[in-house]
């Protein structure tokens, strides 16, 4: 509870808010969207045991030169497939509508939004939260969590 500072007195907080930059709704939504996208990002990292475990035959993705060398004997290289079939998502969606018109697609299969109200948790400690940061709209639960939030992520996230 050391971080109270200027947040403990109600009047101080309000005055502070008047001077503070307040993020508009579009920026708030953009920040929220970036956070969800980060959660879906590829998270491959080397197994730190990689050198320790016995399996020396696991595929090594780095040495593409080697594998290309051995694959020359084959009729088609991985590059062939890469270039023939590498399509972007919009291209794949368009092709899909030609091949399977009027069929449910990968895009349609996304489940709809929940009918339950959104629950609110503190962005700092994860416990249920009753308040929103005046500046950026992020949830917090207590003065100490608000102080941590203000010192760490409040405006620093905006690029």
């Amino acid at each position: 509870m050391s971080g109270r500072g200027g947040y403990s007195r109600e009047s101080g907080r309000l005055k502070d808010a008047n001077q503070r930059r307040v993020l508009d709704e579009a920026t708030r939504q953009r920040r929220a969207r970036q956070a969800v996208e980060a959660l879906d990002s590829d998270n491959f990292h080397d197994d730190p045991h990689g050198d320790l475990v016995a399996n020396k035959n696991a595929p090594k993705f780095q040495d593409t030169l080697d594998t290309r060398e051995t694959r020359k004997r084959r009729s088609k290289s991985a590059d062939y497939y890469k270039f023939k079939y590498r399509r972007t998502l919009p291209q794949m969606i368009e092709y899909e509508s030609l091949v399977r018109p009027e069929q449910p697609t990968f895009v349609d299969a996304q489940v709809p939004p929940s009918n339950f109200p959104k629950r609110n948790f503190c962005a700092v400690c994860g416990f249920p939260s009753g308040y929103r940061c005046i500046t950026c709209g992020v949830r917090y639960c207590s003065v100490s969590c608000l102080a941590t939030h203000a010192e760490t992520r409040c405006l620093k996230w905006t690029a």
Partner: protein
Amino acid sequence: MKAKSERRRLFIGDQGLLMNWDIQKTVWDYIFSKECCPVNFSESPLIITEPYFNFASIQEAMAEIFFEEYECQSFLRVNASDLSDYHYRKDNSSAQGCLVVDCGYSFSHIAPYIKGKKHKPGIKRIDVGGKLLTNHLKEIISYRQLHVMEETYVMNQIKEDACFVAYDLMANMAKAKKKYPENDIVMDYVLPDFTNIRRGYIRTLDQPPITEQQKLRLNNERFSVPEVLFHPSDVGLDEMGIGEAVSYCVSRCPSVVQSHLYANILVTGGSSLFPGFKERLFKEVRASAPDEFEVNITMPEDPTTYAWHGGAMLSRDPDFYSFVVTKEEYEEEGPTICMERFDG
């Protein structure tokens, strides 16, 4: 309601789809190599699984690779839950339907099967799987305690070792707010240093504290992470959770089969392994299903290999060879033969 759905962002990660052919081919080359799983494709048929509503461009590339590159003689492309449903029917011959809830790595799917046939309008995807949960755990631990964003492997182990699904989220939140020993959720996790400790482990607070090893304090993280399966909106993803989606998917099926689907819910996939998963799912489905319907959830002994074993059983089915496409058929009729036979 329409306005809301229009505002909704399309959430598609490309990670669960097969897009990087360079890496994928390297993986397959390894899988079918002498060192891993040597296979003679002129004798062995291949069953390959793919996500629901996979893109035709990906399917065509897969068929071409297996018929032309690996010279596969007979090929069957299915969804993994087709095999789980097959397995379930072998185990429960009187079941009239099966609702497969598959919680995987890139996403989770709910898929109704009626007498062995999938009912496409009832199949839905939730964009939450093991990967997102591990990323979420990494993110909150990195913010609250220690920078672990590059420690995916260790964080995944922590998720598997320490996380559980809360039966009642708010009751667990209230308990986690208290101090040990009233709070029996809080625990330490000793991190591996890869010299003395090769694998991290849980250390409960009743043991004498240790100072020489780096450790994490786990409290509400233990259940707030798997909670995202049941409430994706907790991390800002505007989708139904698994419990809610089960009732939604059943409601999209013919009314005569709905009772059979509720009575035959099958849970598979690695992200269903959290302790408490089945109980919580039952609680949510029971609360939303009509009272007169029986709700039954089956969790196989190993939910991660259930589909694979279904595939092994299917390969011994007397009709198996009527499901596959052979190399000769592919060469004569082209890629459309796969779509005709596998899409039914």
